[in-house]
């Protein structure tokens, strides 16, 4: 299925990451958004507020992020593709409803334009401090799908991908921008609607008498949705539930439900890692988001000095692409792994866990507020660890 012509602004644009993200959502078929203003994400919803009425969509500014984050879940059950948008403190407030979207298996997209924390922090400056929150912010175990664009173009592309993955796996999908990407003006190419692949909502073929909301068909781990208002009389709850969607307060039900939730995402399908000159590299840099662009500069400098440096850029950050990181980091040529990130050590823990001591892993952290000085990353790349 493709996007629709009247809604897509096909052409070459010079826009920032926030606006590109809003256009990506529209191209992906999003027609409802609820949000609450917060820097540096506000431009996303401001754009939606202008554009939605022209494409049959609606943006509502709610009274807070708790309301916004559950209004989109309600809208998704109403049959519409929906997303919410926030930053820092607002994302913290939304955590309970990320859990609700997970357990009720509600396709929704959550845009986080990261700023510096903790608390109100540095509202107008970039950070990548919400990486672990993205995986662990809501209580309980759950799989997280999170994508990390490093340019306005990718903010457009990955927002579309986020909607597609949300539909495919019936799960919340997070897009983790940061202030730098959100406010960076660059060329963004918006393709013809016909060239934009869009996953449609998947509704059951079964009649109401045979339908169970959380029963999967053969070979699938993702149940089909029923349309609301059509006599299916389905029940949706945030309590632990069985295939009928009925709350069942037993450990066995919890085991069954969690087993499916934790395994329903096809890792190969969702993983997106970009490799550059990783064959035979001596130093492997693992990065994501805006920091990958800063690291790119340091990597080029190091290569100019004769060092073989490979770059793994994580576009899908959650689920963490363990297999690829392990395989690359432990290939014979690699002597050490360098992980620059705009926080004081978050995804580096995943790299360390994955590499499991087979190679030294060096964090190049930054508390946020500005991107790294590429020379700091360069030094870390050049520095031999004993």
């Amino acid at each position, binding site marked *: 299925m493709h996007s629709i012509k009247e809604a897509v602004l096909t052409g070459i644009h010079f826009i920032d990451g926030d606006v590109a993200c809003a256009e990506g959502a529209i191209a992906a*078929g999003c027609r409802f958004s609820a949000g609450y203003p917060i820097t540096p994400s506000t431009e996303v919803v401001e754009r939606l507020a202008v554009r939605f009425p022209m*494409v049959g*969509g609606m943006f509502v500014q709610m009274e807070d992020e708790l309301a916004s984050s559950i209004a*989109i879940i309600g*809208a998704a059950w109403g049959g*519409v593709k929906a997303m919410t948008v926030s930053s820092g403190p607002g994302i913290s407030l939304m955590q*309970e409803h990320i859990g609700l979207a997970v357990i009720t298996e509600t396709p929704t997209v959550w845009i986080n334009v990261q700023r510096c924390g903790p608390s109100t922090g540095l509202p107008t400056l970039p950070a990548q401090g919400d990486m672990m929150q993205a995986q662990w912010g809501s209580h309980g175990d759950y799989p997280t799908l999170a994508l990390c664009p490093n340019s306005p173009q990718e903010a457009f592309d990955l927002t579309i991908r986020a909607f597609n993955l949300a539909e495919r796996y019936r799960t919340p999908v997070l897009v983790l921008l940061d202030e730098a990407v959100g406010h960076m003006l660059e060329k963004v190419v918006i393709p013809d609607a016909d060239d934009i692949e869009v996953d449609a909502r998947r509704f059951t073929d079964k009649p109401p008498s045979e339908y169970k909301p959380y029963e999967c068909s053969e070979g699938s781990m993702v149940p089909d949705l029923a349309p609301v*208002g059509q006599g299916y009389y389905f029940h949706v709850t*945030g309590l632990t539930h069985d295939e009928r969607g009925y709350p069942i307060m037993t450990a066995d039900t919890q085991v069954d439900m969690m087993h499916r939730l934790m395994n329903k995402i096809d890792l190969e399908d969702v993983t997106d890692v970009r490799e550059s000159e990783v064959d035979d590299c001596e130093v492997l840099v693992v990065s994501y988001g805006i920091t990958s662009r800063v690291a790119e500069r340091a990597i080029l400098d190091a290569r100019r000095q004769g060092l073989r440096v490979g770059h793994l850029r994580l576009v899908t950050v959650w689920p963490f692409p363990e297999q690829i990181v392990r395989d690359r980091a432990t290939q014979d040529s690699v002597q050490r792994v360098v992980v620059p990130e705009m926080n004081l050590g978050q995804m580096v823990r995943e790299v360390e866990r994955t590499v499991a001591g087979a190679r030294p892993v060096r964090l190049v952290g930054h508390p946020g507020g500005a991107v790294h000085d590429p020379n700091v990353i360069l030094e870390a790349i050049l520095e031999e660890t004993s």
Partner: protein
Amino acid sequence: MSPRKTQALQAVPVNSPMEDWLRMDRMPHIWCPGCGIGTAVNAFVRAVEKTGIPREKIAVVSGIGCTGRVAGYLKLDSFHTTHGRAIPFAIGLKLANPELHVVVFSGDGDLIAIGGNHFIHAARRNVNITVICVNNFTYGMTGGQVAPTSPKFSMATTTPYGSLEAPFNLAHLADSSGASYVARYTTYHVRPLANTIKQALSKNGFSFVEVLSPCPTLFGRRNRLGDGLDIMRIFKEKSIRRDGLSTDAATVDLKNGPIIVGRFKDQPREAFLDVYNDAMTKALGKDRFRPYGPVTMRNPKGDGDGDGGR
């Protein structure tokens, strides 16, 4: 048959047994003997039957609490959400699918304490939904803690020496926040309550029905009000019906009376979606504005139209 079940079945019209409306495979329910929530559900079902709204077009949304379990027992499209957030969920559902009649059925703590902000803003925004609040003056589900509806000096587990705060007058709160329709009854008033819910369901805009209800197990026992029947007797003896009374005068005094009930406000004003479509047509013109219409504009299968909705 347990006393609670007897109560659940009593007030239902014979032509359509209550069983038709309940998920009987989920019985027995969790509510205590003498609890008023089942009575409120009966009144609701009776009201829905009278409206003639096609059953599949009614969706019920609950938050968390004893009352929050209502959604799970009704054989309708039903949503059991998070504590306090039933209203914003309902708003999303309604705006995505304006054909639906969306009803929020939840408790006083859920809607007015943790969800109080959403309550006043929903009334102000005037999205076309109906909110039924079972006010039992306490937090039932968690064991009888104080609520923003608990009478001053009443006993609760977290106010072991008596509540010190003045309770909200929910009708007045809804009214002054902008609700189009505001009413209050008790679980003693089964028939007028059903008629009122029926009326609320037919109103355009935010309609609010408060149902005073016994929680004999916690609030009743701790405040020496007796069992469910005793509390019903209080409702019967102390209630005065005052339709059209200004909501600030529509007070509730369980101890000394009166408990003022009735339909206090019925002042329809343009609901959110109507305002939206009108205003956008004016701002953008017919050519550029794509009206935010009923769900029939979209293909429920989601294929073909490409935009997965509109």
